[in-house]
Structures are given as structure tokens and as C-alpha cells.
């Protein structure tokens, strides 16, 4: 039986959009639901924690970062002598091309570069140590980052066009995922995907991917599941944010719960939740949002 779940992913697993410390009006929209106003609680791992109170859930997701960070953290956990392979589950929310991690000597930390992989010439979306901070924190962050000025980075503007090749990057992305998942298989580590690595070589599909999907109704990825249930949708456009809304995160959590039961990883009964089960929550959010609109807040 599973006793500990690790979740690795990007902003979608971290609870992106629910930065209550930056935008206080988000808490107004979600008032009266009895939910703790933290990003962690509003994320799907946070909601899963409520469904599985006896299981330790460690959410190691981070906004803006990608697969390189996931491999780093997850492999170090598995390599550790303390890792309990029999009673642990790893859940992965893979990102796509467009994120490249660098290690800053000045900060002695990793930083992340986001870029548009499909643009030609390649366009950069910024470098950060941490995304989704307050404006003041962001400005301070930029001051500390190496080679950056406030209107973005001269270094990366030259470096990326010099060294980026989409095919090379795609192949690297694919081989890194193959190596990492093979490592987990070799160690008999239990793992599942909330968003699978579509970029992996088709020859490895059966071996590394096939039996590791979570069923979100008929979808294999949380992105495709209720894709009209973003924070923007949920708040009727009051908050413009394309991250998952609270109801979607509750649905994702219940799908994961049911999947774990189906796989005999936990005991209990399936929840079989659907969107209608959360109509009451939607009504409260709508009521809050109407009030905010009316008061012009």
C-alpha cells in the first residue's frame, strides 16, 4: 500500500494562479468555501491530500520550471538510501519544449529560461529564479540574476539563437525522458502521469508509458480534461488566468484517488465524481464574483 506520494510538475501542479500573497482579490472570489487560502491547498495535490489524509503527499512542483528539474529532484530521491520503494508513488506532470534550466554560479541555484519553441526566430519569454512573485520580489530577483537587466537579458538574447536547434533539443528531451523512466523501471519505482511525455520515442511507448496513465474520464492528460475549467472560466473572466480552477483541481484529485483504488495502491471506494458534484462551489464563486463586479473591486 502507498504511504507517500511525490508530485513533480510545473505551475499546473503547484497551484499556479492561486498566488493569494500577490493578488488578494483571488481570495475574495473563493470566499465562503472553507478552503485555506494557500496555493498548495488549491492545487490538485493539495486537494488530493484532503481525500487521502493518511498518506503523506509531497508536492515538489514549481512554476515555470520543467522536466530537467523533475529529473533532478526525483532521481535524487530514488537514489537516496531512505527511499521506500515499496510504499512510495511518484506522479509526474511533464512539460514540453520551451524550458531550459541553467545553474547560476552567482546565486548558487538553478534558474529557468522560458522560450517559445515554435517561433522562428526563437523568442524568449524571460529568465527567472522564481515565477509568480510579487512585483517587488520579481524586481529584486532580476537584480540578483546573472547578466540580466530589467528589460530582459542581453546574454540570453545572444546565447539562445547561437546554440538552440529545435531538433537537437527535441532529441535531447526524448532521450532524457527515456533514460529517466528506464531508471525508475529498473528500480521498480511506481509512477503515474498526470501529463505524459508525448515526445518520447514511439518504440518506448509500451515499455515506459502505456501502463502509467491516469484516466481522466477518457483523457490521458489533465490539460485535455475539462479544458474549459480554468480560473478565468471559473470566475467568469474576473481573474484572467489559464491555470486550472479549483473545481478542476478537485476533479483531478478525485480521478487520481479512483485510479489508486483501481490499481490496488490504496484501499477504499471510488468517488466517481463529476462536474455536477461541484455545482454548489461554482454557485458560491459566481456569487462572489458578481459581488466583486458590482462593487467594482
Amino acid at each position, binding site marked *: 500500500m502507498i504511504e507517500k506520494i511525490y508530485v513533480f510538475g510545473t505551475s499546473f501542479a503547484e497551484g499556479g494562479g492561486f498566488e493569494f500573497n500577490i493578488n488578494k482579490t483571488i481570495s475574495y472570489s473563493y470566499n465562503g468555501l472553507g478552503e485555506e487560502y494557500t496555493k498548495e491547498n488549491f492545487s490538485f495535490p493539495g486537494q488530493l491530500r484532503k481525500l487521502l489524509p493518511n498518506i503523506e503527499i509531497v508536492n515538489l512542483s514549481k512554476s515555470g520550471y520543467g522536466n530537467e528539474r523533475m*529529473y*533532478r529532484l526525483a*532521481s*535524487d530521491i530514488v*537514489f537516496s*538510501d531512505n527511499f521506500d520503494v515499496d510504499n512510495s508513488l511518484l506522479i509526474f506532470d511533464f512539460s514540453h519544449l520551451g524550458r531550459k534550466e*541553467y*545553474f*547560476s*554560479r*552567482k546565486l*548558487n541555484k538553478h534558474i529557468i529560461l522560458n522560450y517559445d519553441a515554435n517561433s522562428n526566430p526563437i523568442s524568449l519569454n524571460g529568465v527567472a529564479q522564481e515565477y509568480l512573485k510579487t512585483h517587488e520580489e520579481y524586481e529584486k530577483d532580476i537584480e540578483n540574476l*546573472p*547578466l540580466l537587466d530589467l528589460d530582459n537579458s542581453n*546574454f540570453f538574447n*545572444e*546565447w539562445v*539563437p*547561437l*546554440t*538552440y*536547434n529545435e531538433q*537537437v*533539443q527535441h*532529441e*535531447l528531451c*526524448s*532521450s532524457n525522458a*527515456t*533514460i*529517466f523512466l*528506464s*531508471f525508475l*523501471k*529498473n*528500480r521498480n519505482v511506481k509512477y503515474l502521469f498526470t501529463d505524459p511525455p508525448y515526445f518520447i*520515442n514511439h*518504440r518506448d511507448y509500451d515499455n515506459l508509458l502505456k501502463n502509467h496513465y491516469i484516466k481522466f474520464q477518457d483523457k490521458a492528460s489533465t490539460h485535455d480534461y475539462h479544458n474549459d475549467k480554468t480560473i478565468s472560466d471559473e470566475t467568469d473572466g474576473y481573474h484572467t488566468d489559464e491555470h486550472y480552477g479549483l473545481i478542476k483541481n478537485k476533479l483531478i484529485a478525485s480521478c487520481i484517488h479512483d485510479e489508486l483504488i483501481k490499481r490496488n495502491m490504496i484501499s477504499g471506494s471510488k468517488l466517481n465524481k463529476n462536474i455536477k458534484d461541484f455545482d454548489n462551489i461554482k454557485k458560491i464563486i459566481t456569487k462572489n464574483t458578481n459581488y466583486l463586479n458590482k462593487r467594482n473591486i
Partner: protein
Amino acid sequence: MIKKIYTFGTSCTAGGGFEFDCKYDYLTKEGTKSGKTRGEHIKSIYSETPYTQEHYSYPGQLSDLLNSKSYSIDIENISKQGYGNERIERKFFELIHNSDDFKKDESLLIFEFSDLSRKEFYYNPLQNHVIMNYKADPDDKDMKNMTIAKSYWYDSYEDYKTITKDYGLFKEFRENFISTDNELIEVSRKYYLFLEFLKYNKYNFLISAIPEIIHPNYFNQEDKWKKYTIEFGFDGHEKYNSFNLFADDGLTIQDETNQAYCDGHPSLFANKIIAKMVFNAMIKNNYIEDDIIPIPKKINFNESFDIAII
């Protein structure tokens, strides 16, 4: 039944030092031009033919050894001087994904893994990968000691000019984004991940050289891979987990030529012995059935030469 051997590695596997086709000036020990190219200088010292880097490498010598014993085993040497583990993984995936000839069960892969100090980049102006070799010291104090090449000893003047134009940017990268400690963590972690990948996917493989330094975070992994690691050493003498360290013990080219040609790579003699040790490892790991070849008693050129050649 093994029908093909693929060797992956750096200059030590590629036959480093034996760049017979190199057109660069050969510089004397004093750093002056000798009037000969590097290739001409090497040819003036060695007589064994063919004059190819491949023949003088240990995989080339292993190929000769297998042929002499009537084995039908081809060797493809995918090594390249200056490059490291990033290229090894890249070339490995190119092989298994793109080559119709590759047959997993009939192939033996032999890996010489590199250490720190090497960082690979795709470089658009040359539409190719280039390699940065830098000085890795724990405090990262030496930022000046850094070279970039597409192919050491063979880059054209145009290649050199192009890379030189962007040298400043590579230097900025080195100064800001390469931390020796972090690189050691990365090299160590990726090394073990790759070994686990090979094992899980049931590739036949041996290790001819392990990374010289492993980060303490990963010390707990070392013992698991001993059975894949070839031991190099003379009978009754110190054993090494890396053939290049074995050669470093008095069997380099400069030792073999008594300083007539100053190069620190394994000598031709060392590569012949190394080939025999790899052959014996193939027997011990049941990839071939044969009698173990006796390894000669310890030889150290430095002790054997009484008089300098030049």
C-alpha cells in the same frame, strides 16, 4: 552471440595522440615550430601501418586481435577527442534510433566515461556540436583556461575563426553558469541514470573507464556496477577501473617515445595490452568463449629506457 562491438568514449578510445592526418604544425617541447606537421612527426616515429588513428587505438587493436583469432566481430568506434559523456549519450541514441543495422542482442557496447571539464553545445554557425574544455577546480578560480572546438586537431581555419568570434559569449557562459561542484553532481547523477537505463533495457555493455571523480551524494551507487567494469593492470600489480589510468602509469605516448613525441594519451603498446585486457573481459563476461590471453609482466617505459632518443 556478439557480432558487433561499439566503443564510445573520448580521445583515449579514439586513438588520441595518433592524429596522422593532422595538418597543424608540430611544436617542439620548447613551443617552437618543428617544420613538420603533427601528422608527419608522428609518422616519423612510428612504423606500424596503416597510419590511422583507428588502427592505433585500443578498439583498432582489439579488431586485429579478434580477426587473428578468426572471430567475425566488427568494431565501430564512435569516440571523439575532446568530447565527453553528453556526446556518448547523444551518439548512443542516434545509433539505437536511427541505425537499421543495430541489433541489440548481437551487440556489445563498451563505454569510456569522461570526467568533469567538458560541456557540449549545439552551435548554429557551424551547424554542429562544439565542445568546451574548461579547467574544473573546486573554487572555479581559473576562468581563463578554456578552449572550444568542433574537432580538436582537425578544425579548419574557418571553423577556428568562427568559434573565436563567439569565444566571449562562451566565456560568459563559463563564468556565470558552470559551477564545478554542480557539474560534478550532474555528471555523477547522469552517469548512474545512464547505467540504470542500459541495465533495464538489457543492453550488453562493459565499462572501460569510469568517471575519475564521483560526487559524494552518489557514493552509495558505486558498488552496483563493479561487474560491468573492466579491470586493467598487470598481473600482481595495481588494478585500475579505467584503461587510461592504467596507461598513465608509465605507458603513455611520451613514455613510449622517450619524450620524442610529447603526448599523454595511451601509447600504441598500451593500446595493444588494453585490447587484450578487453578481450579477456569479454571472455569473463561470457560474450565470447576462448582462452584468457596472458598479460605480460609489468612494463614501464620510463624504467626501460636508459638513453634518450633525442
